[in-house]
Each structure stands twice: as C-alpha cells, then as structure tokens.
C-alpha cells in the first residue's frame, strides 16, 4: 500500500462523490452479476463442482511442499528455469535481472495480479525497460497511469467515454467513435506492432500443474499467447498457492473459476505453457523462467488465514459486495480490492496500515455465498477485527464505548435502568416519531432519521403486564 494515500475513509468519501465512477462500476458489475447467475443456473452440478474445487485446493494446501517440489522437478525437466522469491522485493529483483540479462528494451505483459502485488510495473520502469501492457484493460490503465481497480476488469472504474478520451489522446490515428467495438479495434491495431517486437514477455499463472511442470493461463483476448510466444524470453510470476496436482484437477477448477468470474464456461483461451521452444518448433521463446513467489503466503499457511489460500482470484466476491459497488477498487488502497482484498491486504501491507478494510464490511455474507471455493470471508474478516482489537489498533473512543457498554450489558439490572433512562432521554430529541439529529450519533442522523422510542422499554411494559396478570 502506498503510504502517501489519504486514510481509507477519505478515499471512500472521494469515491462516493464520483458519480462517473459509480456509473462505471454499475455497468460492469451489473452485467457480471447477471451473467454469473445465468451460468450457475445453467449448471445444476455447480455446488458439487464447488465442493470438489474446494477439496482440491485444500488437498494442495495440505501437501504444498510435496507439490512445489514436484512442480519444480517437472518444470525443470521441461527446460524451464524455476526461481524462488521470499517476498515482493526479491521477486522484482529476479524479474528485472532476467530482463536485463536478456538485454530487453521492450517487455510485453499479460495481465497478472501477482505482477501488481510484487510491484513489477514500477520495477521495470526503474530499470529503464519499456513495459507494454497488452490486456485491453491494463492498456487503458497504463495510459491513465493508474493501478487495477478490479482483479478481472482492471479498468472497471472507467466509463467508455473516459476510455475514449484516453485513446483519442494516445492512439495514432485516434479511434473513430467511442463505442467499445471501435475502441477495441483501435487497441488491437496499436498493440499488434508491440507484440512482435518485444524482447521479453511476462505473464502470470492461474494454475501451476505439478505433474507436468506446466503453467496455465486463462484469458479472453488472445494477448497472453501473443505475449508469451514471439519474444526470446518468457517469464512467469506466480504465487506458490497456484499449484494443482494435474491437468484434470485444473479442469475441475476451470469450471468454477470462469463461471464465477465472467459467467462464461471457459475463457476463450486456456493455455498450458511447458518449457521453452522445443527443437524444430515453429515458434516459441528460447527461454522460459518461472518465479515462485511467497510474499506472505507461508505466513497465511501457518496461521488463521490459511483458507484464503484457496482463492482462485475470480472476483465474484467484489462483484457481489455492496461496499465495493459503492466505492470501487481504488478506495481499498491495496493490490487486491473488495472482500478478498480486505483479507489479503493486511497480510501484504500490515494490519496497522489496513485495519479499516476488515472493518468496512457489513458482514452480510454474500461474498462467501458466491465464493467458488467456499472461503468464509466474513469469518476471516472477523479474525482480523479480533487481532486489531487485541493489538489495540481500534480507535480509543470505540474501545472505551464498547467497554462501557459491555460493563452495563453484563449487569441486567443496571442495563434495565440504563435503557429506561436512555429511551426517555432519546425521546427528548425527537418529535412526530422521528429524531433528525442526535449528539454522538451523527453517523446515523446525518443521513437518516432515527425512530423515536415510545418512551417505555419492552421489559418495563412486559413486567407491568405480568403484574396485571397476577
């Protein structure tokens, strides 16, 4: 997380004030939600497929050491070079060095959230290497100088009118119209030249197949293959949790990943990369490097956030999150936004910097309901809240308030007295049934009225009734 960012609440306020942002978010998430619902409805076995997917991920996580070594062995046998990175800095250093060793002037990149997580875009710029983002959305945000606001639709925060402005300023010749089809054609033309002239292509991986040593990428545009095939060197960066035992296990996960992400059954291109160009092959890179990245994952494996390692990065949780749909991805301030990001960002950036994220959730549970691998996101968010409370990161006023309330709530007689006094006091603030403004409850009454209590608590009235009955 960028320490220079304003606090979460300010970021959220700014996002809420941006009506264009809201329009952009609604346009994409609305479609995504409807398409996922249709895909699930058309797949009666979806719940069984989810259970299987979850079991596969749990199996891999429980035997991660075994599978990492198997993957390394098989990838090496295929001719790929396997590198290991403990953290983001080490991962950046490895990739940058590989690019410099290849004397790379131009690097094409196929969208990878792990690349964002380890700060690859900046590292390449710092090394003086031209980086060309080839995924359409990544191309858009590269032109805008932004970071992804969604893990599936990185440019979700931009309306087509805003995309048209960017393309008009940077595409030569500019697109002739601002409808998505015309703009996509314009990007196709501009990027086509770049693909064939790149020295290094960098991609991520949706799966690392242990028993073949292949990496698997799923994309819709075809940019991944155009990124990984022409350059002399192909570099894959992947988190260590991306392992699956075999291709068949990957297939089982693909069925739930794609439906949950875009509502499709498969992406247009499902690609398995296994080593560099073979003797006689018509095309392909001379070298393939795979960088396996930990960056907090072994810490999660050892602790209460292990279940988060099941995440297959489909983005369904954010598409269905009421908070994400109001503030968008950038307000979260981390690499990963939305519910899954609120679990991951404290791991990556530290709880002190990210304590708002697990708290800025209504705990409505819709994210867990749609999660294809059954991650109990609200439970994990609550675990962060628990740690935040234990580490005294919560504001003093809240701690004092909860503490005082608990002292009273633990004493029913005192509680009865306090609530009797409380509701009578509360009544004094309102009229005609409603309270429009209330000291210490500005968060409520700034936006909505508070029903005025009738003046006597239920318990008072109930006791009176009981006396009357006797």
């Amino acid at each position, binding site marked *: 997380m960028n320490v220079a960012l304003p606090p979460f*609440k300010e970021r959220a306020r700014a996002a809420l004030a941006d009506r264009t942002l809201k329009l952009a978010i609604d346009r994409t998430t609305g479609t995504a939600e409807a398409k996922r619902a249709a895909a699930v409805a058309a797949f009666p076995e979806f719940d069984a497929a989810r259970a299987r997917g979850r079991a596969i991920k749990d199996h891999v996580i429980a035997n991660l050491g075994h599978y990492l070594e198997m993957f390394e062995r098989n990838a090496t046998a295929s001719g790929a070079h396997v590198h290991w990175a403990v953290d983001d800095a080490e991962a950046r250093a490895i990739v940058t060095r590989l690019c410099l060793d290849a004397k790379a002037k131009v690097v094409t990149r196929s969208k990878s959230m792990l690349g964002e997580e380890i700060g690859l875009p900046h590292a390449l710029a710092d090394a003086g290497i031209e980086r060309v983002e080839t995924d359409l959305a990544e191309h858009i945000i590269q032109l805008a100088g932004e970071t992804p606001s969604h893990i599936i639709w990185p440019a979700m925060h931009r309306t087509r009118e805003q995309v048209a402005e960017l393309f008009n300023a940077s595409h030569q010749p500019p697109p002739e119209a601002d409808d998505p089809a015309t703009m996509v054609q314009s990007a196709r033309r501009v990027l086509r030249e770049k693909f064939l002239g790149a020295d290094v292509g960098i991609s991520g991986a949706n799966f690392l197949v242990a028993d073949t040593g292949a990496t698997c990428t799923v994309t819709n545009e075809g940019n991944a293959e155009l990124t990984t095939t022409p350059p002399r060197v192909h570099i894959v960066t992947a988190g260590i949790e991306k392992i699956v035992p075999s291709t068949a296990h990957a297939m089982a996960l693909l069925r739930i990943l794609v439906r949950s992400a875009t509502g499709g059954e498969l992406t247009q291109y499902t690609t398995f990369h296994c080593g560099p160009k073979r003797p006689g092959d018509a095309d392909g890179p001379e070298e393939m490097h795979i960088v396996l990245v930990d960056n907090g994952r072994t810490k999660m494996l050892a602790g209460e956030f292990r279940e988060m390692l099941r995440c297959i990065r489909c983005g369904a949780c954010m598409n269905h999150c009421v908070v994400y749909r109001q503030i968008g991805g950038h307000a979260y301030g981390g690499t990963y936004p939305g519910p899954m990001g609120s679990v991951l960002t404290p791991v990556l950036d530290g709880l002190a910097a990210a304590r708002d994220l697990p*708290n800025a959730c209504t705990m409505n549970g819709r994210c867990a309901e749609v999660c294809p691998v059954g991650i109990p996101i609200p439970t994990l968010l609550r675990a962060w809240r628990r740690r935040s409370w234990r580490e005294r990161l919560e504001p003093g006023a809240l701690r004092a308030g909860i503490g005082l309330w608990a002292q009273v709530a633990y004493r029913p007689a005192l509680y009865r007295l306090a609530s009797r006094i409380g509701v009578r006091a509360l009544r004094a603030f309102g009229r*005609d049934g409603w309270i429009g403004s209330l000291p210490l409850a500005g968060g409520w009454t700034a*936006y909505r009225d508070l029903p005025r209590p009738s003046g006597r*608590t239920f318990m008072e009235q109930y006791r009176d009734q009981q006396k009357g009955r006797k």
Partner: protein
Amino acid sequence: MSGQPQPTVGLFVTCLVDAIRPQIGFAAIQLLEEAGCRVEVPEAQTCCGQPAFNSGDDRDTARLARQTIAAFEGFDHVVLPSGSCAATMVHGWPELLAGDPDWAARAKAFAAKTHEITSFLVDVLGYAPSGRRLAASATYHDSCSGLRELGVAAQPRALLAHVEALEMRGLPGNDVCCGFGGTFCVKYSDISNAIVTEKAEAIEGTGADLLLAGDLGCLMNMAGKLHRRGAKTRCFHAIEVLAGRADGPAIGEEA
C-alpha cells in the same frame, strides 16, 4: 398439540426491540402463544453482544454469551425476533466458546435450540396464522444474517401468504444488504448511506404501502432513510403484520 406437553420458550427480545419498538416483542409473545407455547421473558437478558463481537472484542462477547446461555438453557427453545441476533447465538457463540472446556458443549446445545421466530413458527411448530386480514401492498427485504446464516427466506413468506388481502410485491435486490451492518452504519456512515439510498430507491420503486423485514436493525436503517427521503412507505417487522398488529403505528409513527 393436544396430549403433548406445552413447549416452553424463552423469548430473547433483543436490545433494539426492548428500547425502540416493544410492539415487536408483544407480537412475538402473541404468535408463540397462539402456536401453543408457554412463553417466558427472562429478566437476565440484555444483548447478544454483536457490537462487541463485530468489533473483535471476544472477551466481552463471551462473557455476555455465558450469562445468557445460563439464563436460557432451561427452556425447550430460545426464540428471537431477529435473524441477526439469532445467528450470533447459533454460529458466533459456539465458535467463540469452542476452546472453553466448561462452555463449548453448553454453547452448542444452546445453539441447537435457538431459533429466529418465523423459522421457528414454520419449521418447528408448523404454525400458520388464521383470521388475519390486511388490505395493503407490501414488499419484503431479506435481512442478511437470517437469510444466509439461518436459511430464513421461505418461512416469513409462507406465513405472510396467510394474511388475507395482503398483496406481496417482489423487491428487486431483496437479498442485497441494506447497509446497516450494526456498528458499520455509524463507523462507515458515508458508505452505509450510499447503500441504503439504493435500497430505499428499490423499495420506493415497488410502490408498496409497506416494507416488511425480520430484523429491527435493518428496518430502522431503511425506515429512517425512507422517512428522510420523504417516502410514504410504512415499515413493520413481519411478525407485527402476522400478529394482526399492523393497524397500529408503523416504525417512526407516534401512537
């Protein structure tokens, strides 16, 4: 129920009903008695502890949980007019006390006999109201905890279907959170406001006379927003309608 012993129910009215809308508690007693239960309201109840639980304060939540379990575990059933508080007791408390050798089993047993009221009436008692009539149109919002943690969805609708002349209208996004979220709505009031604004628009869009739901917290949030917006929608807890008490003042109306 003849021949069988009358089931005893400990009613946990919830802190919000106690303070803000006692009518819901009386509607609960009426329905439970109509359904053949002997209802008691133990004095030792205060709150399920959600404000502390959702703030990460487990110690205070556990203390409240133990006290409440001790006061209620003698009943055949524990019933609440709130899916949210019931879910805290059914799922939160056993999780919280799982490591406590003296309380883990008690919390589990307690959870097993704790119910949200509409699901208790339908699933456990097989109750259906009779002779109720309300000439109005209404729409129903599914409160999240009840819906997702306790599976409360069909039961309130099945009960409401017995109210004569009541026209139920579908609410677009009926299963989408209203933005209440307990302490969330004051901690992150700007975001909460944006969410409840959309909810209010959806409710107004149905043109229904009444908004019904199963949780007073969500109802206060939505009713408060609707009133601020000048909407005419009247808001009731679903069991007030089921108990034939919707002829009285709605939430925010004075008697």
